[in-house]
């Protein structure tokens, strides 16, 4: 289990991670969510002992990362697919990593096979496409056959086929009982991959729990159509709901359930032609949760940004 205790990282004038206390449970995929700049990568680097916490601590099964006997056999990480020398072949890159942790050579060929890079193993890693680079990074994470895997924005820049491959791959790893910790700034991505989620904004913990709880807790809206839309709108406003008129016959009622809207209509003898609950999407929930903490507002979430 990875434990973060009051983990804080301050760079010159930014608090990148702010008093984060969470346990990352084994055997499930945990999504690590937050808008760009919310401190996900910084947290990952502190878990791996690359950045030193300003205060607080990170432990892996109770130990500091630097004290692990064979780090790659306990924790596999992909923090940046480009964090390798472009001039080295994929195979030599993995061979050097394997050597650090006394991992046998044949494991290198195994992981190359798992990620489907056997044919290009002797090509310069610098000539790889983004997707191939990402696969090579995953191969590196798998080298020591570790129980704990960390992936920082693994689908960034991948094509839909690559994204599907990664998603299924992570689910497979978790189903083997491993701890999989994956960060993303896209909620939709996590919805399909993660069991648990940790949501952060501006370095602070916003929410932690099962992904299903997150959607259920979201207050949705209700779409209602009625020949007496005006009267219904007035009655609902009086009952304290937010009413938006879509057109002459249809309204959207925010912060209400369909039962509440139906009851108000019944009390006022108003006929309804349609009553549809609008389930908040995960993306909406995420936006709502992190609205106060988005660092760069603007056009984010319209496209998949590459950082």
């Amino acid at each position: 289990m990875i434990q973060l205790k009051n983990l804080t990282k301050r760079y010159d004038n930014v608090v990148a991670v702010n008093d984060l206390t969470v346990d990352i449970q084994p055997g499930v995929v945990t999504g690590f969510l937050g808008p760009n700049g919310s401190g996900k990568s910084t947290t990952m680097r502190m878990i791996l002992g690359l950045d030193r916490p300003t205060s607080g601590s990170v432990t892996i099964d109770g130990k500091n990362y630097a004290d692990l006997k064979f780090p790659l056999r306990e924790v596999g990480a992909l923090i940046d697919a480009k964090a390798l020398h472009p001039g080295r072949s994929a195979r030599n890159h993995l061979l050097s990593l394997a050597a650090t942790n006394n991992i046998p050579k044949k494991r290198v060929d195994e992981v190359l096979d798992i990620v489907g890079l056997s044919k290009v193993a002797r090509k310069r890693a610098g000539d790889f496409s983004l997707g191939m680079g990402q696969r090579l990074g995953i191969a590196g994470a798998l080298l020591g056959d570790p129980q704990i895997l960390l992936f920082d924005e693994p689908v960034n820049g991948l094509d839909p086929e690559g994204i599907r491959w990664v998603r299924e791959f992570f689910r497979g790893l978790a189903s083997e009982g491993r701890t999989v910790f994956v960060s993303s700034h896209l909620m939709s991505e996590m919805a399909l991959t993660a069991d648990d989620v940790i949501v952060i904004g501006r370095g602070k913990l916003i929410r932690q729990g099962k992904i299903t709880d997150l959607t259920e807790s979201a207050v949705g809206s209700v779409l209602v159509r009625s020949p007496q839309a005006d009267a219904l709108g007035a009655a609902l406003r009086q009952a304290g709901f937010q009413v938006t008129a879509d057109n002459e016959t249809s309204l959207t009622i925010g912060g209400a359930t369909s039962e509440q809207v139906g009851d108000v209509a019944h009390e006022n003898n108003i006929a309804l032609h349609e009553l549809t609950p609008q389930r908040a999407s995960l993306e909406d929930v995420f936006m709502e949760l992190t609205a106060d903490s988005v660092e760069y507002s603007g056009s984010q979430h319209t496209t998949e940004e590459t950082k």
Partner: protein
Amino acid sequence: MSSSISLASSTKAEWIKFRSLRSSIYSLITLISLTVGLGALITFAIAKHYADRGGDLTYDPIASSLAGLFFAQFVVGVMGAIVMTGEYATTSIRTSLAAFPRRTEFIISKVVVLVVTLLIVGEAMVFVSYFIGHMIEASYNVPTASLSNAATWRAVSFGGVELVLLSLLGFGLGLLLRRTAAAIAVFVVVLLVAPILLNILPSSWGEPILRWMPSNLSQGMISLTRDAHTFGPWNCLIILALYAIGLVSLGIVFFNRRDA
């Protein structure tokens, strides 16, 4: 098989990293051709000139055979620096340290690979340079130096050591400054520019400092002749080695403290 990661496992990895880069091979080829090639060319030119003048000049047989070492100094300085700055430029330092988080041992393993490689290549190439120079000198009937002479043996064999120590200065600068351009700039300033500036100063100021400069120390290691202001060859070696060890140690202290 050991029960944890170790200096040995990291050294093996660093060796794989070194030999699997084409740039390492090119650097070594550049190093060898500069040292041996320029040594031969310069010996040829000076020996011919000396022979034409009928021997009325002083001739230092070792200085011309090993003249290529002057240029080799910069090649090994860059090679040393790039071992570290290359990791930062590509950000592969993060992948490396995630695999091997014991930072002091990580640095030592890089030092081992650099030192062993350059010591073997350096020694081989200075002796080749010496023999080629000797052949040229003999053919022009100019003075030669014999390896059976202890001073000659020392001057030639220190050539490889000199390069190792200078590569460690480059390595230390790379470790501290983390950027290739910055490390190379400082290396060139210290080795080339500073001595020139010191030479411009009145000699009563410049000379006491000059003898402590890496350029003079490295030259002192491989010279047969020695002027009054230069330390003896063994002292030159020891002082330069202390610089190298000091700089790399300082680098290790910072490396352990800083974020990767």
